[in-house]
């Protein structure tokens, strides 16, 4: 299931061309899926009290925009969550 979308275009599309509307739709798929999965993770789980998952996103988003480092963002997210869970 992770393999089909990775392999198929590289093998088939290297031999053909997609219509323009399909390329434009595909262009927005990555950010749409990230946002959808993220809102599910932050808003639709009942694992934590209050909105602390949402609060932990604040420093995480800030670091993501400032550093554009995946590792830095993940590290700050984990540490923020650890501190927030310790406090509340």
């Amino acid at each position: 299931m992770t393999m089909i979308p990775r392999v198929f275009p590289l093998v088939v599309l290297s031999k053909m061309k997609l219509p323009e509307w399909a390329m434009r739709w595909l262009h927005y798929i990555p950010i749409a899926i990230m946002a959808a999965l993220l809102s599910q993770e932050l808003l639709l789980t009942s694992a934590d009290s209050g909105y602390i998952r949402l609060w932990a996103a604040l420093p995480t988003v800030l670091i993501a925009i400032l550093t554009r480092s995946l590792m830095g963002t993940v590290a700050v997210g984990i540490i923020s969550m650890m501190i927030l869970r310790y406090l509340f």
Partner: protein
Amino acid sequence: MKENAATQERLFWLGVKDCLPTVLGYLSIGFAAGVVERTAGLSIAEIALMSVVLYAGSAQFIAVGMFAVGAPITSIIATIFIANLRYLLLSAALAPYFRHLPAWKNTIHGFLLTDETFAVATNRLSLVGYADNGWMLGLNITAYLNWLLANVAGGIFGQWIGRPEAFGLDYALPAMFIGLLALQMADRPGRRTDLTVVACAVLLTIGLNTVLPSGIDVIAATMLAAAIGMVIEKWK
């Protein structure tokens, strides 16, 4: 493009070297994935198998998370599939550089495609103009082994942790989504349309969550939000 074995070997090690900047980032996410998988009840062997077969941080977090709440296997598979549909775009973007390689080699390179190796590959391929088989193998194999190692290390470490939540480790997944979202939007034009698509995806997910089963709501919200972006771009 005809290269002898010595050149291919040199390119392979160049690929390994070019992969190194991404190693630490994926080590931390793979480690967190391993810990979460172990504490969800998977054995070290199952963790190794999962990282080798799925080879995707988001897919593995999703699989464990949905498995833990008892979601049906069909909806787990469907969610993983839709979550990885983004690779269609990455794979399609690289496709023009792979015209000269046979399909079976492209199958291997495609399977080993990740967000990070994609970023490294586009950098080089746009300079060189085509994909060296040796260089791609060096890049991909380094990333693949690093991922397996990180997952297993996390799994072993996870045996000594009772609750990974206390250390915030389960937050690695949303943090990774935030990081990838910021990276993707930083590197391209049309910020306003991007932000509209993001807002639509969030609202649609929340709204559809009340009427659709978990997993399907994410799929539907994604496809609709992307379609909204497509229409805005066309009418602008």
